[in-house]
């Protein structure tokens, strides 16, 4: 009898993560949906005018900004991260990996605000000097986010490469392939789903990141037309205005969160489909 009760209790506890997910979605949508219904879905996601005091709630520039920054960040993070992981897993001396990998993983813990701060004091002056413009830009945000997701991408990619059965590698080498041919033609395809998972995790972190982006993006309300122009992302829109918003304005920020929620759900679903191992 007592054992049965404990089992029931634990089952309830085990559902708490799912319950929390629903609770979060419920509260965000409950605040956001009425506003979207009031101004119209089309106006909300396709208008470029965001002027809460005049009742204009168009978040298209922020959707575009978020996607632009995220895609560019993943390109940067994936290129550097994959190169670094391939080198550490296959070409670098064994001992150096054992030291470097935990060190890189530790770097994943550095707070995002610190990355943003480094962006402000180092990266932005550099962009201003080299390319001109205000410095606060799509480019700055993408670089900072790209660097921020590096530790995650590197660590998971190394794990994925190491998880490839050694027989594959030995077989390929025995057939006379070079180590690079083996890595490129055998190990990378075999580790494909793990590597894609690493990119997707990085992408999730990039699109959801708030504080680092606020500090370097410039947060202008216009449609970004060049990489050197300031941009406002969905996340920074919420964080910047939450402090003083009320009424419809506050509801519009929850609705912004709702769109972010939906975009992330879509990205994760696509990711799941792509990452599923070929059968």
């Amino acid at each position: 009898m007592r054992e049965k009760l404990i089992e029931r209790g634990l089952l309830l506890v085990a559902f708490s993560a799912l319950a929390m997910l629903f609770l979060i979605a419920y509260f965000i949508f409950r605040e956001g949906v009425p506003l979207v219904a009031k101004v119209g879905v089309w106006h909300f996601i396709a208008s470029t005018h965001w002027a809460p005091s005049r009742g204009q709630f168009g978040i298209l520039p922020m959707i575009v900004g978020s996607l632009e920054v995220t895609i560019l960040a993943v390109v940067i993070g994936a290129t550097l991260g994959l190169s670094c992981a391939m080198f550490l897993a296959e070409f670098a001396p064994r001992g150096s990996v054992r030291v470097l990998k935990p060190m890189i993983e530790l770097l994943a813990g550095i707070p995002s605000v610190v990355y943003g701060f480094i962006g402000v004091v180092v990266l932005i002056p550099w962009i201003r000097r080299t390319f001109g413009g205000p410095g606060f830009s799509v480019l700055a945000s993408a670089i900072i986010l790209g660097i921020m997701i590096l530790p995650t991408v590197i660590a998971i990619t190394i794990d994925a490469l190491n998880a490839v059965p050694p027989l594959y590698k030995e077989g390929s080498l025995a057939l006379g392939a070079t180590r690079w041919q083996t890595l490129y033609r055998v190990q990378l395809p075999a580790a494909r789903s793990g590597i894609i998972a690493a990119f997707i995790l990085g992408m999730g972190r990039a699109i959801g990141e708030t504080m680092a982006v606020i500090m370097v993006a410039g947060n202008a309300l216009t449609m970004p037309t060049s990489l050197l122009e300031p941009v406002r992302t969905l996340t920074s829109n919420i964080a910047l205005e939450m402090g003083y918003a009320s009424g419809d304005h506050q509801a519009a920020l929850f609705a912004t969160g709702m769109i972010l929620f939906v975009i992330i759900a879509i990205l994760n679903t696509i990711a799941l489909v792509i990452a599923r191992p070929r059968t």
Partner: protein
Amino acid sequence: MIIRPLAWQRIVWVALAAMTLFTLVVLFFIIGFIASKGAHVMTPEFLFGMPERMGKEGGILPTIIATIYITLLAIAIATPIGVGSAVYLTEYTRESPVTSIIRFGADALSGVPSIIFGLFGFILFVIRLRMGWSILAGGLSLAFMILPTIIRTSEEAIRAVPYNLREVSYSLGGAKSQTIVRVVLPNALPGILTGVILGMGRSVAETAVVIFTAGSSLLIPKSLFDPARTMAVHFYILAREGLSMERAYGTALLLIVAILLINVVAYSLMFRLTRKMR
């Protein structure tokens, strides 16, 4: 022109080595930069003094205390729920649609961005449940955020406990719950602790959640219902409003050192655990 495979390999080697070097330099530059600019700020007066003129002068004691309170509260809430979920998933069920739904919940929760936890915590805890900006609202919101980490690591740790330990306990007449409490959990403890400590690191580093749920008061919090400003929030405000670059560097350095220490403990526990298993 055809490049021979071995020549190709040499070219690739150089290219990858250059990228790796660049990546490592960038990552370690961040720590080095903060350390070199912040080291001289780290005096006892800074660490144990009260802030003056909104943090332009003086120390950061209240933010250190607030960070410790909020982090411990988040851990205290998330750990029992996380370990309980993990015990159910590993000890009480086989793989079934139910477990995959539960796992989906945990995975999806871990993909929710922190700003959403902030919004949610603000509307539910701060506004609807009338907690106001407080340690309690901040700790609860962070607990939601770190729960998936704790479930995942606990699950792996419990799964790694050899099955025959359980059989010995059963053969001695131990009930299922006794076996779990006396045999399984003690053996899984280092792994569970790793998850808890990683969650701690994430709580200390978090800004977006805490700023909307715990507020940014610079007073020393005296109860769960007092508003408070964590180190990460303090650093953000110092840097963004340009109040004091010096103190911003100092706070950033303390933040990084604290998180690196926390993570080193977590990883060394994990390392010892995996070595024991071999």
